[in-house]
């Protein structure tokens, strides 16, 4: 096994990789920007290497500096996490050229899958169904408009590169097309360094179901069950679960086989994810393949007992897959909620700032992959993910109950979070019934406002906090029993 690897990422996913490396006895090198000198990945790795200014181009997207870090620290391999350089084929190529192992698929696979157009072509040819729409990138708004006319509105404008909900716009009618294209293209250019876009059918009532795959260098390829990721806001997943409540064993087998076929057609190696849309009639369409570890990989780990990061390292090292398709089976049910620094009342707008207090939920079957801590300043420069709260229980019903309890015990002060919103989603009838489609949030929660229960208690808490604040700054405060309201209240009458 590798003796030392570098992790070209930050926050919770870098820590996730570090955790497995520590258990495997693999030394880790973190890289960091000026904004991250006290970030969790820096605090928990064996070594850390300073990259530069907070701007991603000066730090986590700077290939030269990262390669330099690996060489100077003697790291044999680089784990890219997700985002940043994870799906950058030039980076994978460069690693190869420098004699450093890239923990992920070969550069040419990243290229073909990263380009949504090429991947659509490959899948089409190998018999995997794809969504209706363009098979080439398009800069001309008029061509977009006529294709949209052909397959019918609404349509999706999508960046050919990238992922993570960036560079995507829904277009409901012709007059929205131009602005949508411009803005999607610019966002994509900023996020991925590539502004190319194309168009595909937008399914208003469909499920986003993806299959985890693992492929080694010896031709073995398996799938590790599905994830249901339909609950999205701004085209980014916020709640994921496995198993999907609509997959019959037969459909699971069929889609799993298609996922393996897709991975094989792509010449895939390492851990990857094949995303499908499943429509109301149980027809499924290849959407794209993510050539990296997925944000939501923990739900798969919870139900299968497999450490996917460990598998990634083993595959990159050249090991044969130690499990076959028959060894893979799920037990129980797992749900993940993404906890972002964002304001659910204001269209999930990011809310950076300093975490002044953090209390993570704990208990059997609760896992919180967390990238922040009390006192940490969440940088404005990167994705606003704080943590991924994951639960595992015997049934979907118990998992929902466990997740609600965990969310209720999750305390974050200093930045806004969607915790309240997530509780309401998990408590909602459509979620409980498993009626989750990609339009779920728009349909059921577009007008969401915080409930007004406990307003009186909040008022009382405000007053009591003031009354007892003399006790602060001690580790455990005690109330000074001598105090009367006259001494402690600033505003009585």
């Amino acid at each position, binding site marked *: 096994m590798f003796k030392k690897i570098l992790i070209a990422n930050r926050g919770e996913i870098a820590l996730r990789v570090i955790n497995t490396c520590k258990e495997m006895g693999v030394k880790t090198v973190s890289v960091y920007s000026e904004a991250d000198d006290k970030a969790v990945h820096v605090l928990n790795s064996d070594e850390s290497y300073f990259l530069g200014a907070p701007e991603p181009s000066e730090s986590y997207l700077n290939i030269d500096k990262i390669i330099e870090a690996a060489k100077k620290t003697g790291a044999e391999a680089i784990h890219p996490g997700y985002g940043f350089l994870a799906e950058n084929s030039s980076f994978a190529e460069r690693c190869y050229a420098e004699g450093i192992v890239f923990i992920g698929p070969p550069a040419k696979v990243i290229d073909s899958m990263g380009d949504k157009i090429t991947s659509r072509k490959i899948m089409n040819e190998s018999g995997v169904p794809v969504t209706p729409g363009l098979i080439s990138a398009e800069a001309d708004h008029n061509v977009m408009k006529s294709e949209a006319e052909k397959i019918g509105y609404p349509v999706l404008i999508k960046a050919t590169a990238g992922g993570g909900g960036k560079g995507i716009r829904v277009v409901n009618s012709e007059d929205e097309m131009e602005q949508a294209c411009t803005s999607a293209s610019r966002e994509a250019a900023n996020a991925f360094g590539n502004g190319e876009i194309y168009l595909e059918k937008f399914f208003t009532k469909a499920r986003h179901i993806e299959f985890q795959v693992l492929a080694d260098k010896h031709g073995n390829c398996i799938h590790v069950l599905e994830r249901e990721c339909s609950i999205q806001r701004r085209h980014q997943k916020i709640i994921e679960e496995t198993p999907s409540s609509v997959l019959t064993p037969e459909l699971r087998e069929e889609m799993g086989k298609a996922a393996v076929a897709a991975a094989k057609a792509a010449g895939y190696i390492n851990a990857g994810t094949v995303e499908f849309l499943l429509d109301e009639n149980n027809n499924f369409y290849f959407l794209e393949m993510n050539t990296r570890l997925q944000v939501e990989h923990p739900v798969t780990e919870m139900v299968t007992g497999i450490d996917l990061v460990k598998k990634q390292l083993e595959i990159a090292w050249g090991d044969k897959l130690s499990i076959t398709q028959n060894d893979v089976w799920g037990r129980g049910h797992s749900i993940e909620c993404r906890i972002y620094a964002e304001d659910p009342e204001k269209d999930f707008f990011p809310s950076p700032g300093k975490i002044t207090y953090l209390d993570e939920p704990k208990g059997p079957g609760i896992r919180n992959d967390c990238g922040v801590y009390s006192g940490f300043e969440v940088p*404005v420069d*990167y994705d*606003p993910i704080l943590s991924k709260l994951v639960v595992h229980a015997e049934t979907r019903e118990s998992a929902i109950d466990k997740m609600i309890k965990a969310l209720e015990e999750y305390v974050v002060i200093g930045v806004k979070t969607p915790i309240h919103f997530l509780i309401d989603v998990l408590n909602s009838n459509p979620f409980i019934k498993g009626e989750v489609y990609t339009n779920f949030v728009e349909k059921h929660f577009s007008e969401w406002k915080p409930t007004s229960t406990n307003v009186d208690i909040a008022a*009382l808490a*405000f007053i*009591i*906090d003031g009354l007892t604040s003399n006790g602060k700054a001690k580790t455990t*405060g005690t109330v000074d029993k001598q105090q009367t309201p006259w001494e402690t209240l600033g505003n009585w009458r």
Partner: protein
Amino acid sequence: MGDTRKLEVIVEYNLLVNEEKVSVEFDQKQESLKAQINEKFYDVSFQRVSDSRLHINVNGQSLNVYAGGDDTKTVIINGRSFEVSDADLMEQNKSRKKSMDKDPTEVTPPMPAVVISVDVKEGDKIEKGDAVIVVSAMKMENTLFAPFSGTVTKVNTKEGDKVMPGDILVDIEKSELDE
């Protein structure tokens, strides 16, 4: 029960809880208090667990509440977050803030952000609603629009700048027509 429901030493607070006005009358006795909010009575006992955590018992129900912040506090109860402030205190401070509150017509970012593009320059005539500046925070773009029609008299920022709420990114002189 009649007697116990009479408050003896009455202190009154006018609070704002998530912008809703809540008037609390209460009577504190060491680690407990009796309070009245509208028509409802509350018997409360409490103890501080840590700087940010209180354990309170309200009419027999045990609750953990978390509070942080100075004038406006964030109070968290069972995963639900409330912004609470003292309305009377806020009233006193209002005059200071008035100029800002009264005039929501500035080009300023809603949150700490980085300027992605400046779409106007000095001397430009612009219409209300025109895109003026695009900022980005945590990789999400946000377009700032002209709050009224007029002429750009000064651009106070450039691409790549880090900007904060309250920073006036572009000065605009209102056109006569608009008034």
